[in-house]
């Protein structure tokens, strides 16, 4: 088992002919993901890599191929529209990789996605991988192995770092989810923790947070009150200066909410194992799996 994506995932790629879209679609196909369609307006009728039909819009792609999941590589100014199109066309899960989506665009997208009952992951995220089953997004397949640890993170390369260290230590993963570093995203820590709690194959969860906002504190409350499975957490930005945006739009300490110290305190209070360094995940997770 896994969360959000699995062997039954039928993927449509929005922006399949773009530089990033085409590169990562090939990677996903090599990994064994069932890529059923691509969308690039104006290129409908063509084929991608000789095997994947391209459509002018997501409606046609869903109607002709039964796609149930979309991944979005379109440029930032068109990303919000692309998300709403995928959801409106009936994709139950939409993963938006695009970085730089205006936050006001997301204020329109978020309620629309909720009302349609779809699951949006991202934007500005590395996507999702369920090792051995499917890869939607840009997480490198070879750093993952199947196993019993769920991974959820606000970051991209930091996720790779932790997953890589887990894999090197022989600790496999059910699903790794990068939820993205933007202030408004479709899926938060709690959504993922809840899904991991319900997934019988996930025995422990590794969670990587960052400075900014209060998502990690709310996640800690959820772990304390609703979860039976062990969780290990890390917060990036312990040494970041206040008031400065650290790359991610969400990674900024403002006022009293959002410091690393507060988040680490919240983790401790919820019984979450705290990894001081990324490498500490290995020993902490090992201990929890025993």
């Amino acid at each position: 088992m896994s969360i959000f994506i699995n062997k039954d995932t039928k993927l449509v790629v929005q922006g399949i002919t773009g530089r990033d879209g085409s590169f990562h679609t090939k990677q996903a196909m090599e990994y064994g993901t069932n890529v059923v369609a691509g969308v690039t307006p104006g290129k409908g009728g063509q084929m991608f890599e000789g095997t994947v039909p391209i459509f002018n819009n997501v409606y046609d792609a869903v109607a002709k191929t039964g796609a149930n999941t979309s991944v979005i590589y379109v440029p930032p100014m068109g990303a919000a529209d692309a998300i709403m199109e995928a959801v409106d066309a009936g994709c139950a899960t939409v993963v938006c990789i695009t970085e730089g989506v205006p936050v006001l665009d997301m204020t329109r997208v978020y309620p629309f996605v909720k009302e349609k009952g779809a699951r949006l992951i991202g934007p500005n995220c590395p996507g999702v991988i369920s090792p051995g089953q499917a890869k939607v997004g840009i997480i490198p397949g070879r750093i993952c192995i199947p196993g019993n640890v769920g991974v959820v993170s606000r970051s991209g390369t930091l996720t790779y770092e932790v997953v890589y260290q887990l894999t090197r230590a022989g600790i496999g993963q059910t699903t790794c989810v990068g939820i993205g570093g933007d202030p408004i995203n479709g899926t938060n820590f709690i959504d993922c923790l809840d899904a991991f709690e319900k997934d019988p194959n996930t025995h422990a969860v590794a969670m990587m947070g960052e400075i900014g906002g209060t998502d990690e504190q709310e996640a800690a409350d959820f772990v304390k009150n609703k979860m039976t499975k062990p969780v290990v957490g890390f917060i990036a930005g312990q040494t970041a200066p206040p008031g400065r945006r650290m790359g991610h739009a969400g990674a900024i300490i403002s006022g009293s909410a959002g410091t690393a110290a507060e988040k680490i305190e919240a983790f401790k209070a919820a019984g979450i194992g705290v990894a001081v360094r990324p490498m500490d995940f290995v020993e902490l997770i090992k201990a929890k799996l025993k």
Partner: protein
Amino acid sequence: MNIHEYQAKEILRGFGVPIPAGKIATTPVEAEAIAKELGVAVMVKAQVHAGGRGKAGGVKFCKNPAEAKEKATAILGMQIKGLTVEKVLVTVAADIGSEAYVGIIVDRQRKKPVFMVSAAGGIDIEQVAAQTPEKILYLPVDTRYGLRGFEAMRMGFFLYSDVKLAKQAAKIMQQLYAAFMASGCSLAEINPLVATPTGELIAVDGKMVVDDNELDRHADIEALRDVSSEAPSEVDARNCNLTFIKLDGNVGCVVNGAGLAMATMDLVKYYGGEPANFLDIGGSSNPEKVVNALRIITADPNVKCILFNIFGGITRTDDVANGIVTATKANPLKVPIVIRLTGTNEEIAMKILTENGFSASADMDEAVVKAVAMAKGGQAA
């Protein structure tokens, strides 16, 4: 991106918000001339990207042009939170009856822009929120509908019992909301919104913060950027599509990805060092980015060691290796470099580096420990 008070006021004025007349001055003589032209008592206000300008002495009331010149002399060139004041706004001093606070901010919890309004204006709204939260009305706006008339009126009556003032306030809420949306803001505020003794509302101070992700849509707002208020190295980095923040330490960090970059800074500190910067070279790499990153980092005289930490996903580590080789051939390094890279095309990258006399490790902690030791003048462990 922050814009100055005078720039925010120009935008708000364009949307109909009542703003006191005023002009910008860069010299005391200009300030005097503007005060003369306005012909009434004025405020001289420092234009810097920092809060607490008033407390720092950067905002002064002046009865006449001579006084405006005198105050401008004092304010121009003064330091407010490390920023030098290079411009002052000379503006009509409003006759103050009462002061209210009106602001909109994108709220990550509610996932909507939220209006915050309070009749207790003119002071720090965070303080009001902490001490007397009942004095603030929070009103989330569904951007699919926009601010509806009844919502604007509700805020108007929350601030003023007088119907004329409430209606004026409601109109200003609509204008502020329109400016906020049209400019792609993450924050817009009027503080204080002043009611004059004669029953007119006027926005005495205005502030807008624009979402950096919106700037591609708003060339007019990008043009308002004041590069003199930013560290030159940060401006340089932005022009090269790098995210760079200068810090005070001596370990120069070059990392791909914001989360890993923060984690690298944390690890430098954990092992007893101090990071000199946050630098994210981003996803899709090319050797040029690495060349620019090295140029920016080595320009900082505090940097005693350079640490690369690259986890190649989209980023191809051979691109990074080529960038390091190219950059150091053109400009030989005066400080030691420690390279950690792993991921996409790692074998090719290692070969390129070894052939050019560099060594690299695949382990993050090992590399950080080594960089910290070298920055302290020690030898590699």
